[in-house]
């Protein structure tokens, strides 16, 4: 996993609540058996005027000029600003894969759906929860300043604005550690293999039916 330490980037605003993972990456692209290559189809139904197909060339497709990521002022955006309950719906990890593949490193919103939030941390993408009024203020700042950028320092847990405001955010200590260092948490869990074996032995005694081989 790609580590996240300090990142500065252009902010793109997605001004609607309840952005679901079907919207982030529609189902036809979930047929891929790879982890990469989803970026060109991020927000496919909002971004293009026609229906996208998996494994197709997207370069000649008609773009929706009204969609935020198609506007020149947000070219190269790497911080996504969103409203409440971002990432709701399907558990598809293809959603963070698509955001990351497009070039996003962080998403800022007042709230996230649980599964999406968790999936982000496995993929070097930092979801940041900020109070609604702060997010509102950022939407206004982005609208008012072309090329508006934010700097995010994970170690210090700060979002830094161009006018030198430092906005603190919370992050789970373990997830922060893994993300700062780009760690694979399977390796970390396997360090506890003895504890897992001990748990299994105890469960086999008091709930043996959980270990039946099946039909």
């Amino acid at each position, binding site marked *: 996993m790609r580590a996240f330490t300090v990142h500065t980037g252009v902010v793109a605003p997605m001004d609607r609540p309840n952005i679901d993972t*079907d919207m982030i990456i529609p189902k036809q692209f979930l047929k891929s058996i790879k982890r990469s290559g989803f970026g060109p189809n991020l927000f496919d139904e909002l971004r293009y005027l026609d229906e996208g197909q998996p494994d197709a060339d997207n370069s000649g497709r008609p773009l929706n000029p009204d969609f935020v990521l198609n506007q020149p002022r947000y070219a190269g955006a790497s911080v996504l600003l969103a409203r409440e309950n971002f990432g709701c719906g*399907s558990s598809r990890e293809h959603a963070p894969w698509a955001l990351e593949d497009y070039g996003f490193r962080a998403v800022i919103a007042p709230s996230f*759906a649980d*599964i999406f939030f968790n999936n982000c941390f496995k993929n070097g993408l930092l979801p940041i929860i900020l109070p609604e009024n702060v997010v509102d203020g950022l939407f206004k700042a982005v609208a008012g300043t072309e090329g508006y950028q934010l700097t995010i320092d994970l170690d210090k847990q700060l979002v830094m604005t161009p006018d030198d405001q430092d906005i603190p955010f919370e992050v789970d200590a373990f997830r922060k550690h893994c993300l700062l260092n780009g760690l694979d948490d399977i390796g970390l*869990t396997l360090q506890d293999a003895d504890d897992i074996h001990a748990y299994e032995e105890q469960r086999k005694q008091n709930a043996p039916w959980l270990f039946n081989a*099946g039909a």
Partner: protein
Amino acid sequence: MAGKTLYDKLWEQHVVKERDDGTALIYIDRQLLHEVTSPQAFEGLRLAGRQPWRLSANLATPDHNVSTDAGERAGGINGIQDPVSRIQVKTLDDNCHDFGITQFDMKDKRQGIVHVVGPEQGATLPGMTIVCGDSHTATHGALAALAHGIGTSEVEHVLATQCLIQRKMKNLLIKVEGELGAAITGKDVVLHVTGVIGTAGGTGYAMEFGGSAIRSMSMEGRMSMCNMAIEAGARVGMVAFDEITADYVKGRPFAPTEAQWEAAVAAWQDLVSDDDAVFDKVVDIKAEDIKPQVTWGTSPEMVTTIDGTVPTLDDARDDVERSAFKRAYEYMGLEAGQKITDIQLDRVFIGSCTNSRIEDLRQAADVAKGRKVAGSIKQAMVVPGSGLVKEQAEAEGLDKIFLEAGFEWREPGCSMCLAMNSDKLGAGEHCASTSNRNFEGRQGYGGRTHLVSPAMAAAAAIAGHFVDVREF
């Protein structure tokens, strides 16, 4: 000391190790696998040179991509016409063979939607922790289990370690007291709840459904309800263990037998929230207040009753919701104030992990019996949740009722719930659907989904528009 909730108990029974930072290593008893969210997990295992921790904890079946057309199905994997879908189903097959994981493949009559197959086989049992790379894993909580959806990285984590690193959620009780009216199902209850608390109302919570209305609800109804806990933001939906649970599980292929059954049932008696348990939030609902539900918009919280109307902008709670309403009117092709019964339909879909079990099909067949699908309906399809549900329905003659009424009788799979196979809506088409999500494009590019119960969907197919099944 205060008593414990069902969730507290399930959590405590599965803690392998507490960590200093407040997270815990939680043991997973069962992982269900399907073709869409597992290939990258198996690839990860291979790249790291790892093996599954405990093979027998895993059970796989293809469901999202499989065709529900009998002709296309007859060819097995090689018969799948879409080459991208075919590769994905083949990849699951190869991975199960390579790693030695039990799979109900396309030709196995036990194949079906993972969330139908697990309980049907007794592969998901009370007291278990159950995960699957699918958000509707909450379904299995209906059996007093701790079940939730995970992403592909965690699928790989569970394959490799049989554990997940988790932080304990908060406790939410949805208390439905009283008696549900005629034709009111678990689907109506959960849609009503979503309308009350919103799609983020359950975020961060494990949601238990309790109260007298739930105690008298069938297992199928409980599964439909827990299935959609995620639509109200909760990863976990649960119902306490009782006699209805035990009766459902007994005799299923993976269920314990004889002395082990007795021991299991004795242990399962404790899978209830204690009388003095403290919940972080309680939502009280009167069963009598719940009418047949129909969604009008593009989020499950955009729901109203069959005698209702599309809400107006004045009904929105703030500017953010007002703009969401405007988008939804436009996408759905509806006007504020329009009567729900005036919405004309193009297609009807009865199926999905929410509503494709035998009871769902019986309820729909009861309505369809002796009637005909309206001429204005382009397609009305019934897709059983598994090969065994299909077999049971055919033994009861339900297939004939549907066929005589003009419905299509299909092979099992996820089908038009998310349109990863060829079952999909055309742009602008309105569909009465027993599935779980009315998101933009969910059932097909530009498609317009209205979520309802199976009986409501069947009645809508006959009338050509929504009607109150209680007066039908």
